[in-house]
């Protein structure tokens, strides 16, 4: 049984009621919602793929690409926002040439936007593969991620 089938069998077939919990479980298990799993959910619940995609893109929590080797979480909580996290995010997106929610072509980096990660004193904060980086600036962000690039190789 595939992971997706495993999740699906916990829920009754056909109907929209359990769509969100199912998508959440699949995302937790696989890290993202693949095209394949969305189609499989659609067949199981008898919901067109466009509808599921519509629902899933409505919520920020779902991503449609697997994480990169290095996963960068950018805090967009209030404290970080006040201290310039939006510029940090912009710079990061420019530098990696992908948007939040996406993964670079080479699979090295993915960006995720998260709510307050409880380190407001260090704002703006980013977290790469679980490691925190404090007081990030539009300049330092590039150096930080580049370190990981070299480390991965």
């Amino acid at each position, binding site marked *: 049984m595939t992971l997706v089938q495993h999740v699906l069998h916990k829920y009754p077939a056909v109907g929209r009621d359990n769509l969100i919990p199912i998508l959440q479980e699949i995302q937790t298990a696989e890290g993202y919602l693949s*095209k394949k799993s*969305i*189609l499989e959910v*659609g067949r199981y619940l008898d919901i*067109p*793929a*466009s*509808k*599921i*995609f*519509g629902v899933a*893109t*409505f*919520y920020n929590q779902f991503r*449609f690409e697997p994480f990169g080797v290095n996963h960068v979480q950018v805090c967009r909580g209030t404290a970080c926002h006040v201290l310039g996290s939006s510029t940090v995010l912009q710079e990061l997106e420019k530098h990696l040439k992908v948007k939040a929610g996406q993964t670079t072509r080479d699979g090295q980096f993915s960006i995720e936007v998260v709510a307050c990660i409880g380190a407001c004193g260090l704002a703006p904060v980013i977290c790469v593969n679980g490691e925190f980086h404090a007081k990030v600036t539009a300049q330092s962000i590039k150096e930080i991620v580049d370190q990981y690039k070299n480390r991965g190789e």
Partner: protein
Amino acid sequence: MDFTININNKSLVASRGETILEVMNRNGIRVPTLCHIKNALPTGACRMCVVEDNKTGKLITSCSFPAEPGMSILTHSPRVVESRKTIIELLLSNHPDDCLYCVRNKNCELQDLSEELHVTERRIRGVKNRANLDLSSASIVRDPEKCILCGRCVYVCEEVMGVACIDFINRGNKSIIGTAFHQGLNTSSCINCGQCVMVCPTGALTEKNHFAQIQEALNNPTKRVVVQYAPSITVSMAEELGIEPGIDINGILNAALRKVGFDHIFDSSFSADLTIMEESAELIHRIQNGGVLPMITSCCPGWVKYAEEFAPEFLPNLSSCKSPQQMMGAIIKSHFATQENLKPEEIFSVSIMPCTAKKFEAQREEMTREGISDVDAVLTTRELTKFLKLFGVDMFNIKPELVDSPLGFRSTAGKLFGASGGVMEAAIRTAYHSITGKEMVEFQVPAIRGFEGRKEIKININGLELGVAVVNGMANAKVLLDEIREGKNDVQFIEIMACPGGCIGGGGQHIGTSDEQLKARMNALYRIDETERIKVSHKNPEIVELYQDFLGKPLGHKSHELLHTHYHEREVVK
């Protein structure tokens, strides 16, 4: 239960369950709407239809609010008008403002509303919508930048066509109408019916245009450019020309097409007759030889694609006959080519169709022989009007002319193809004759005429009882197919047309066609059937001649090579 409500200080009768909008419309009060669709559950999304509740001072959406006893409503108070105007200004604030280059210029609800609400300056400036043009489909072009998110296309695609290949994607100011995974429409389950185009208020949904190819061919001295037009075209152009609906402009159309420079004019109603010869023979063959039943018509490319995607188990039930467009195309590039001493590639074959799906059909692999398409370009009814303008044809000062012959004469049975039930009626007439050797006493079969989404009757031919069903609107077909899946077995022959009402309501027709206009088109076809003499395909002298000179007999060797095909299951995102 009736009661009165007060609208603009006039007392009006309303009944329970009616919306305020319905009461207003019944009484000649017009309030603009955008997201509202007749007979659909209101979403209240656009707020264009707001009116003022005089008692509470609140603005309420008239399309979704039920009329209540004692209500007092103002439809055009300053607040209401200002609020509507703001909505339009907001919609315009991120709109591309491409009107001069837009197919829907002068036929756009957004333009109309901004005129109606007297928007004369740009008060709100927003960031323009940015989204990719989707040119992937052979039939439909999607330009999400022009979309105002009214949601009508989503409704029609899901509820009327049962396809649901597009939906609202993302949220808030990032919302767009799109396909699953943002893929091109060509990889989705879209059946190319064009019904979404018919309801789109703006130029966000249009058809794939073939003008350039046709113009090039017309200017190429080495090409013989021929044209055919579908049965419904001559009775559905009136609205495009602004004349009384239901007028048959047959002769004028012939003359106009000659003025444009087409070398030869064919009538697809002739090949509809040909389809009937083949299809009725196939039906009888299936019945007599234990073939797969029910047999289902296959002249609607919207339905064919639907079957390939959603009902592949019914593909053996599909008649192997090509559609009239494709039969005509095949005959043109074979028999006609030989007669005229031309190679197939020297002919450029255009068809005028009420249908966007025909554009897809024309480029299907099954419809080419040795790499040459039987039909090279397709114009919709809407496009035809523009095309004629491009060539300066004045439709009002032109004398009717006859279609070219041979391969142009039609029976009225072929003409009936334009309306739901028409293929069935034509097939019954010829099948009856093949089985009994006699003509029917009464040709008309009223029970399968009209706009009903599903019509079913039993026909008795010499003791052979035939259950026939006619459905239009893909969603209605879905219900019938489900019943058959569950064991329904009292039908042997089914006609399926994807579009509501059949091709007179096709996705390539005049935008903004009303129910009355549709009815007028249908009646025009019935009138032709009543007044003309040759009412059966097998009596069409040019059909008889074609079989004598070229095809031999229905289902014969030549027919199989040119007029029949098979379809296969199709993998799409669905």
